[in-house]
C-alpha cells in the first residue's frame, strides 16, 4: 500500500466527518436556541426541562453520552419492550448535537440577557407583546453576540466527531485507524490526520466568519 492509496479511504472518512459536523452543528444550534430561550421562560415546567437538559449534558462527558445512546439505550428499550436501537450515524449525530446544544444554550441565554434593558423598555413603550419583543427586538440584537462563541463551538464539535469512531462509524479517525492497523505506518497516518482536521477546522472557521459578517451587516452600514 502506497501513500497515495491512503487518500481515497481518508477522503471517504473526511466526508463522513463533514456530514456529522454539519448535521450536528445545525441540530445543536436549534437545540441551543430552544433550550437557551426556554431557560429564560417563566413557565416552570419548560424552565425545569431546559435546565435539566443543559446541566445533564454539560455535566457528563460526550463519550459517556455517546455510549449511553448507542449501547445502553437499546438495552433499556428492550427491557421495556421497545426497539430503541439507533443506527451509528443517528446515535453519533444525536450525541454530538445534544452536547453542543447544551453548551450553545448558555451562549444563547447569555447573549439574550446581555441585550440592554433600554431596548425592552422601548419595545414595551411601543406596546409590543413580550413574544414580539423577544423575536423582533431582542434576538436579532443577540445573534451577533452569539456568533464568535458559536464559531468556537462548531470547531469544538468538528474535533469531537472523532469520538464517533468508537461506535464504528466510518469517519476520518476510523478510517485512519483502519489503515494504521494494516500498515503500522503511524507517523504518516497521524500526520495526515492532523493536517486534514486542521484544514477542515480552517474552512469551518472561515464559514462561521462569513455567517458572522452576514448577521452583523447592519452594524457596518456607512453613510
Amino acid at each position, binding site marked *: 500500500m502506497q501513500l497515495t492509496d491512503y487518500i481515497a479511504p481518508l477522503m471517504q472518512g473526511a466526508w463522513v466527518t463533514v456530514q456529522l459536523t454539519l448535521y450536528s452543528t445545525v441540530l445543536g444550534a436549534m437545540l441551543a436556541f430552544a433550550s437557551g430561550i426556554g431557560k429564560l421562560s417563566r413557565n416552570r415546567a419548560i424552565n425545569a426541562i431546559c435546565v435539566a437538559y443543559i446541566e445533564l449534558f454539560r455535566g457528563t462527558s460526550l463519550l459517556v453520552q455517546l455510549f449511553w445512546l448507542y449501547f445502553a439505550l437499546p438495552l433499556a428499550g428492550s427491557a421495556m419492550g421497545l426497539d430503541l436501537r439507533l443506527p451509528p450515524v443517528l446515535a453519533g449525530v444525536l450525541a454530538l448535537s445534544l452536547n453542543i446544544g447544551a453548551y450553545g444554550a448558555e451562549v444563547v441565554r447569555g447573549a439574550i440577557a446581555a441585550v440592554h434593558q*433600554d*431596548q425592552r*423598555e*422601548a419595545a*414595551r*413603550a*411601543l*406596546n*409590543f*407583546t413580550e413574544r*414580539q419583543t423577544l423575536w*423582533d*427586538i431582542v434576538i*436579532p*440584537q443577540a445573534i451577533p453576540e452569539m456568533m464568535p462563541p458559536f464559531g468556537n463551538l462548531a470547531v469544538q464539535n468538528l474535533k469531537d466527531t472523532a469520538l464517533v469512531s468508537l461506535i464504528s462509524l466510518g469517519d476520518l479517525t476510523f478510517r485512519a485507524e483502519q489503515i494504521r492497523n494494516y500498515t503500522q505506518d503511524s507517523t504518516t497516518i497521524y500526520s495526515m490526520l492532523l493536517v486534514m482536521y486542521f484544514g477542515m477546522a480552517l474552512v469551518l472557521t472561515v464559514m462561521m466568519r462569513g455567517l458572522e459578517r452576514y448577521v452583523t451587516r*447592519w*452594524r457596518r*452600514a*456607512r*453613510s
Partner: protein
Amino acid sequence: MNDPIIKFDKVIKRFGDLTVLDELDFEVGRGEKVSIIGPSGSGKSTVLRILMTLEGIEGGVVTVNGEPLWHEEGPDGLRPASEAHLHKMRTQLGMVFQQFNLFPHMTVLRNITEAPVKVLGLSKAEAKGRAEELLELVGLADQAQKYPHQLSGGQQQRVGIARALAMRPNVLLFDEPTSALDPELVGEVLNVIGRLAEEHDLTMLLVTHEMRFAREISDRVCFFDQGRIREEGTPEELFTDPKEDRTREFLKAVLD
C-alpha cells in the same frame, strides 16, 4: 381641573426602603403641555415611567382618560391590572427616551413602521406612508434608509419622536430628551418638540433641564422635590415669582 387626562391620586412608589413618590397628587388636563423640573432623584423620571407602565406603584391610583392604569375594576373594587389591561392602556401613551433607545438593527424607516405594523396591524404601505409624513415633520425625510448609528444624536432623537408619534398616542412623555445631546444639537430637537406643542390635541409631559424652553412651551410648570410637587404654576409665576425657598434655590442653581 375638570376631566383631566392624567391623574395621580396619592400615588406611592418605593424602591426597597426608598420612597420615591410619597402620596403624589398630580393632574394633567387634555391637551395641556406640562413641564416637570426638579433636582436629580426627585422622582421626575419615575412619574413618566409609571405612566408608560415601565414601573408599577405601591399605593394610590393612577388614571388615564378616566380609567385606572395600574388597576382594573373587579367585582369587589379595584384589583391589580393584568397584562391585557396594560396593553390596552398603553395605546394612549408614547414615550421619548433620554438615550433615544432606537432599535439599532433596523433602518430609520423600520424603526418607525415596525410597531404600527406589528402592534396596530397597519399594512406595510400605510405604515410607510405614515412614517414618511413623520420623517418630513422632523426634517429627516432623506434619512429613511439609514441605520441609527449613521445619524447624529439630534437626528436619532428626532427619529425617536417620529417613532413615538407613529403610534398616535394621546399623551406623549419626554424624559430629558436633550440631556444626552451635544449642546449644538439640542436646538434641532427642541425645535421639533416646540412645533408639536402647538398641536392642541396632543397632551405633553416633559421632564427637562432646559428652563428657557420649558418656559416657552409649557402651559404649566411643576417643581418636583423629594417625590412631591413642591410648587406649580404658569411659567410666568414659577420662573419670575417662585413662592417657595426650595424652588428659588433650585432655579438660582440651574439658571446660573
